[in-house]
């Protein structure tokens, strides 16, 4: 189950983390782009708004300037009498509703009467024009008179609070009146129009950007003409504020403003609110219109939009995570159950139930395949158990058969301790549990020892059974007949009689006359025996003869030879000469003869052991394919013959 949870968890984690990253990147980018786009748009809008307002202000100011200029130019042509001057001023004031008061002042001149003339001045009050002449000459040192005079050009005065009209914010447009031309041209007087700024300040204060944005109007000197903080209006300049707040950057900003700059910039208000600011000049008067609005409001829509998108994204991610987790669990849970069941099956419990197959997907197919495999495994194991039981039974029976077969062959050596005239020794190593080879030796009568070696074709149980029959027959007939040719002929006849399986055996049968050393022998298709005489080993030239079993009425011939004392007769089966090594090279008769020659003087037991070792060495690990049987007889001669 742990593996199943792990896959589900990993899968869910990867999917949710990736989704979160994608959403974060997308939302972040969208937020950034929106901010940039919004800022750009708002900057344009604010600039348009401010420029629009400035345009309206400018239109009014220019109209006033034009009217004032008109009067000034009119007064340059000739010297108007007081009466016509008054009429001109009055008419102009009547025509220009934006002008609050209108007057004209002249430089003192001894030619004039009086030398310092009275300043005619009209102003509005409650829809009527009031004549309020100024008869002091203080105007000579006042801005509205001095500045246009000294500059020789139209000038808008710094706004001031007019006490006469109850503290109204006013400004004056003054235009110099010239006399003469060229070098002689000089200022003779000034025409002045007082303008109330109430309408203008109302206009500026009505400029609202976003929710709490506000506007500020600065004079040419940087004095606040409008500001939400009334204490600043006409009291403080932006530079004084910068000094009070110890904000040098505000002073620098103010300098750019009063020098007629225009800019959209980030600004932190006195209250510490991150804001945006736009300012632009009012060209006629050198004033600056400033609009300030909080950054938070600028981005409020983007923020709320981003917040909503983020919430939707989070909900989506949660939903997706849940769904992914559910699917992952649905996939991995049966896998986990399958794994548990498989573990139990692996432990040997084939009856352990597999999880039910609910779907036809890969997991379902896997479960079905597991079920099929379990069923096949169960059958196979049952078969294997039965087979193994049968094999074990056969094994045990074969073991018994081996014992029986071994017990049939004479295994007690020395076999005839009371017969010094000869030694005999034999070994048989079956290739399987039971072999087809056999040997035997027995006395036919007190002086004739019959010894034989045989090799049943085929190996295993059938060969062993055949060997049993052959051996029994050979011993029985040998003891009855006492001549090799007769023994073989007789046994052949008996074997051939009921030989349905067409089995056969080769036999070399010999009888030693212990007194004379004469050996009579007959061969039924067996390997030629080796005679070791005077330390020389050679194959005996014997007739091959026909094997026992396949065919009845075969005639065998008895041959004869003499063993001298010390001679050894070595009989063997093809298990020796046809022993192969890993390269399928036969051991062969040559090697056998050579080996026998080197061990010629040994006792028989050692000789056979040496040959067996030689053959094993030749095989070099290759499995023994045939029974290996050897029998050696050494003739010593009769002890009393020496006497």
């Amino acid at each position, binding site marked *: 189950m742990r593996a199943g949870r792990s896959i589900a968890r990993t899968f869910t984690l990867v999917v949710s983390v990736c989704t979160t990253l994608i959403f974060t990147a997308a939302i972040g980018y969208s937020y950034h782009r929106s901010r940039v786009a919004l800022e750009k748009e708002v900057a344009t809008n604010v600039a348009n708004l401010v420029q629009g307002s400035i345009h309206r202000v400018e239109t009014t100011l220019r109209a006033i300037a034009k009217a004032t200029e008109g009067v000034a130019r009119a007064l340059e042509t000739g010297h108007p009498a007081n009466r016509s001057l008054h009429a001109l001023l009055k008419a102009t004031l009547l025509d220009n509703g934006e002008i609050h008061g209108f007057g004209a002042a002249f430089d003192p001149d001894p030619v004039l009467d009086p030398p310092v003339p009275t300043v005619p001045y009209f102003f509005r009050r409650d829809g009527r024009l009031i004549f309020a002449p100024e008869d002091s000459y203080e105007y000579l040192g006042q*801005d509205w008179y*001095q500045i246009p005079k*000294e500059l020789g050009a139209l000038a808008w005065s710094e706004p001031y*609070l007019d006490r006469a009209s109850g503290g109204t914010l006013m400004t004056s447009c003054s235009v110099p009146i010239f006399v003469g031309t060229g070098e002689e041209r000089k200022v003779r007087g000034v025409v002045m129009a007082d303008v109330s700024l109430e309408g203008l300040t109302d206009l500026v204060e009505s400029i609202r950007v976003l929710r709490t944005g506000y506007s500020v109007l600065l004079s040419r000197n940087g004095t606040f003409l409008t500001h939400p903080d009334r204490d600043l209006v*006409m*009291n403080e*300049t932006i530079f004084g504020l910068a*000094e009070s707040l110890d904000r040098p950057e505000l002073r620098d900003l103010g300098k750019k403003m009063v020098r007629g700059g225009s800019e959209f910039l980030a600004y932190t208000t006195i209250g510490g609110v991150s804001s945006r600011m736009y300012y632009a000049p009012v060209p006629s008067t050198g004033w600056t219109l400033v609009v300030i609005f909080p950054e938070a409001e600028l981005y409020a829509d983007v923020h709320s939009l981003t917040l909503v998108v983020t919430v939707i994204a989070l909900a989506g991610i949660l939903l997706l995570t849940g769904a992914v987790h559910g699917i992952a669990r649905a996939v991995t849970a049966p896998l986990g159950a399958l794994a548990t069941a498989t573990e139990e099956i692996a432990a040997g419990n084939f009856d352990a139930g597999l999880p039910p197959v609910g779907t036809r997907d890969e997991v379902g197919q896997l479960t079905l395949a597991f079920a099929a495999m379990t069923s096949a495994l169960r059958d196979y194991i049952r078969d294997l158990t039965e087979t193994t039981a049968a094999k074990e039974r056969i094994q045990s029976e074969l073991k018994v058969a081996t014992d029986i077969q071994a017990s049939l062959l004479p295994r007690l050596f020395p076999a005839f301790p009371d017969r010094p005239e000869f030694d005999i020794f034999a070994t048989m190593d079956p290739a399987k549990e039971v072999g087809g080879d056999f040997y035997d030796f027995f006395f036919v009568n007190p002086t004739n020892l019959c010894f034989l070696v045989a090799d049943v074709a085929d190996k295993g149980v059938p060969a062993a059974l055949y060997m049993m029959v052959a051996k029994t027959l050979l011993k029985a007939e040998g003891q009855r007949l006492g001549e090799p040719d007769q023994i073989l002929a007789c046994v052949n006849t008996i074997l051939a009689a009921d030989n349905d399986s067409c089995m056969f055996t080769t036999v070399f049968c010999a009888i030693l006359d212990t007194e004379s050393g004469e050996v009579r022998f007959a061969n039924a298709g067996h390997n030629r025996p080796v005679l070791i005489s005077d330390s020389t080993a050679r194959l005996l030239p014997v007739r091959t003869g026909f094997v026992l079993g396949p065919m009845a009425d075969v005639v065998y011939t008895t041959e004869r030879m003499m063993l001298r004392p010390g001679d050894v007769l070595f009989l063997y089966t093809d298990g020796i000469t046809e022993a192969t090594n890993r390269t399928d090279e036969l051991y062969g008769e040559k090697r056998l003869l050579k080996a026998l020659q080197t061990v010629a003087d040994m006792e028989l037991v050692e000789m056979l052991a040496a040959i067996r070792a030689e053959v094993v060495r030749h095989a070099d690990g290759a499995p023994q394919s045939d029974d290996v049987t050897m029998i050696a007889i050494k003739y010593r001669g009769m002890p009393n013959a020496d006497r």
Partner: protein
Amino acid sequence: MRSANTAKNLSHRCALWTSLAALLILFLALTGLAGAEEPLRKARLMPLWSPQAQFAGYYMALDKGIYARHGIDMTILEGGPGRSAVRSLTSGEADFAVLWLATALQQHDTGLKLVNLAQIIQRSSLLLIARKASGIARPEDLQGKKVSLWDGELSLPVLAFLDMYRLRVQRIPQSYTVNLFLRGGIDATSAMWYNEYHTILNTGIDPDELQVFALHEHGVTFPEDGLYTLEHAYRGDPAFARVVARASLEGWRYAFAHPEETLTVVLDRMRRAGVPASRAHQRWMLERMRDLTRMDSGTLTDDDAGRLHPSAYLDAAAILRDHGVIREIPDHTTFTGGDDARR
């Protein structure tokens, strides 16, 4: 029994007398206390100009009860354009006035005898300011230039300066603002260090853009604001006049020791008077007043501060005499109140 009665009567009489004596003592004590608490004496002060930190000391002396503590019920009148401090003295509107030394000497010469009770501004605060961009770097560069000057005696130190360098300039009458200079209508403007100089700075012009000639650095050390009263009024009660001067100087010391509190009081007065009130500007003015009164100077004792020093007096008077403003220099002792001064 009779003797007993007599004794009884005697004891009654004693008690009565004792009570009467106690009442008498109580009455005397009460009247004695009342006698010690003299009624505050009314006085009116006319400053030289509209409310601003130039007169902070008087406002603080009033606001912090320093005048009252000295037995003065002070009223500070509102000065400003068209409200001459000298005229307020002659008309009897004011008992005391803040005047320039030059004004007081000029009035003295015309027969209006004034007594200097205290000298507040110890040296000239006048500056001539030009733009460096106009190429004016030395006083000589002002030759033939347009220079604005105030009317009357306020122009005297400047004229003395111009004479010193033998400069002939185009005199332009100077208004209450520096706008003509700011617009470039003139080459140089007169300015008070504590007022117009800072006004110019606070229209966005940096100090390093300006060429400033401080008159006192060119030998024109002309004491300015002082506290004055009419001589005949002074002779009537010199002690009271001295008390007013002492209380005023105490007010100044308080103002310099508590600048922010003082600014609040000054700005409040300015607002009530309807004149533009910039805290930054008034702070500058108060700080410069401290420099000009030398009340922060470690080398001068408090006794020196507030006193019209004879040498500075004589220098200033000589300038006035040389320019024909006055015919002869009044005796310093007489001018500052005679032998009974500074008691």
